[in-house]
């Protein structure tokens, strides 16, 4: 792909905010968005009047049953009487909303952007998973009684078969991330668990078991992005967004290579080129890769070229991806530990890289001295990769 990598403005992240992530939160979607946005503004030393435009992200409307989410959220997200955009690419939305915020600033259109993502999955009954039934093709897939976990299980099993990966090695991801989440202030499922706990948990769709999966969550997150000129007015410690990338594979998911996420390989390549990164494994110091399932962390590491094909489980077993390892992955605790309010979870990941690079992650701070980090999300019908690369 040919790509313009010369932009009008270098883009900085200068503030972040989060709510708790929980199975059910009493606040309305607007109230949650407001809490996260307020916190991000305070963190950046700004007020809403300083903001030029607002980007909002949330996943399928069917979760909270309000089929006009963007407009409904305008007040809570701080978009009232401002240029306001809602973006949506399923689970990839959180990081994609940051990419959309980035292009507002990089293009020179705006200088100061508030990015907000919010999700309430709890309103859907009997279980939010049933809402996912309606994302499938009504002619070829839905009549078979498809459950969302089928397609992940099918992909996980193909990946395990292709590279001869054991369930024990995949379970290590869940153990690591839930343990990391014990140190995260928003975390829903921080816990000390063992590989045996994962392997003994309820089998939902073999090879997927209950502890292989992130929870259903409510929550919100927000970030402030500005041009270089304004970043320096507000802070001495901006974190630069030096690369963005996104890419979609076909929605005919049964026609794809299930063992390797090509969409992410292309999205990563786009972001690396923009950031001038030639050897991701050496140049990325810390990464938040999308982990709604434990195998997905491994799959995504390989798609991002942070590991060779089939190598991610080995790096995990050797401890390379722990906080004190050479390539810490998901020091926040990820979706498996912190929770998965879909779009908000993507913001949580970008926020973690922001804090890690500013050395503000407290007990979660990685042992090495990180200067370059990556955050990634994944979604739609398992088909999009969204990537941002950040530096100090």
């Amino acid at each position, binding site marked *: 792909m040919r790509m313009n990598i010369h932009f009008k403005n270098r883009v900085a992240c200068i503030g972040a905010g989060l709510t708790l992530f929980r199975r*059910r939160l009493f606040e309305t979607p607007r109230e949650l968005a407001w809490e996260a946005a307020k916190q991000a503004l305070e963190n950046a030393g700004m007020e809403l009047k300083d903001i030029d435009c607002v980007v909002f992200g949330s996943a399928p409307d069917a979760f909270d049953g309000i089929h006009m989410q963007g407009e409904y959220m305008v007040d809570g997200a701080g978009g009232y009487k401002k240029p306001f955009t809602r973006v949506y690419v399923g689970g990839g939305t959180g990081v994609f909303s940051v990419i959309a915020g980035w292009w507002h600033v990089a293009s020179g259109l705006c200088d100061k952007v508030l990015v907000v993502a919010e999700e309430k999955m709890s309103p859907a009954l009997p279980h939010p998973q049933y809402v996912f039934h309606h994302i499938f093709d009504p*002619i070829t*897939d839905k*009549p*078979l009684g498809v459950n969302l976990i089928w397609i992940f299980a099918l992909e996980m099993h193909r990946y395990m078969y292709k590279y001869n990966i054991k369930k024990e090695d995949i379970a290590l991801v869940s153990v690591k991330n839930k343990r990391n989440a014990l140190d995260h202030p928003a975390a829903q499922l921080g816990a000390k668990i063992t590989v045996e706990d994962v392997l003994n948990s309820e089998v939902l*769709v073999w090879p997927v078991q209950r502890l292989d999966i992130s929870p259903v969550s409510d929550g919100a997150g927000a970030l402030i992005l500005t041009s270089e000129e304004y970043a320096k007015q507000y802070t001495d410690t901006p974190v630069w967004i030096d690369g963005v990338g996104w890419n979609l594979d076909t929605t005919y998911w049964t*026609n794809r290579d299930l063992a390797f996420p090509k969409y992410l390989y292309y999205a990563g390549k786009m972001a690396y080129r923009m950031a001038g990164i030639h050897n991701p494994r050496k140049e990325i110091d810390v990464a938040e890769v999308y982990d709604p399932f434990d195998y997905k962390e491994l799959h995504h590491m390989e798609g991002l070229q942070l590991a060779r094909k089939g190598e991610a489980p080995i790096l995990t077993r050797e401890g390379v991806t722990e906080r004190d390892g050479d390539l810490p992955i998901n020091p926040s605790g990820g979706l498996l530990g912190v929770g998965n309010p879909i779009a908000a979870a993507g913001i949580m990941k970008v926020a973690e890289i922001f804090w890690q690079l500013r050395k503000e992650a*407290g007990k979660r701070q990685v042992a090495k001295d990180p200067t370059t980090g990556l955050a990634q999300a994944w979604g739609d019908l398992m088909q999009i990769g969204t990537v941002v690369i950040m530096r100090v």
Partner: protein
Amino acid sequence: MDKNVKLPGTPYSSDDFKKGKIPYVEDVPKARYTWSAGIAMSRFLEELKNGRIVARKCHECGRVYVPPRMFCSYCFRPTDEWVYVKDTGRVNTAVVSYIGADRGKLGEPLVVAVIELDGASEGMGILHKLGNVDPEDVKNRKVFNMRVRAVWKKPEEREGAITDILYFEPIE
């Protein structure tokens, strides 16, 4: 942000909700949809009634698409030709489901698979159920690359739906 920061948000449990401790409103949307099957899939569904699986071929790249589509996603030009693919194939990947679409437990576990049909382009799989396959053979991965064939409903019971194929079963 350190662990000890207190973040906003008020958690509650489903019990609070059932006991009426949480003010709420409820609504059940009665939305119904009819999806026209379109040009390619109408023919596909008609052919299922005849016990045949029809695909579309692109002459530019040679891809044979199942399910069929009137345009080539890669070349972004019209596909050129209807071709029949076989109702036999091999298993690309398979899993054992213990839950249904609504997350409720299934009485009997269900084996589902991505099946690459003979005559379709490599990697061009479809989703369907597997019958007469021991879940243990899924777990021990014997099912990968297994040769399978479609088991059809009786002709008079077919209705032009993907479920006209009951499931795929191993070819002895």
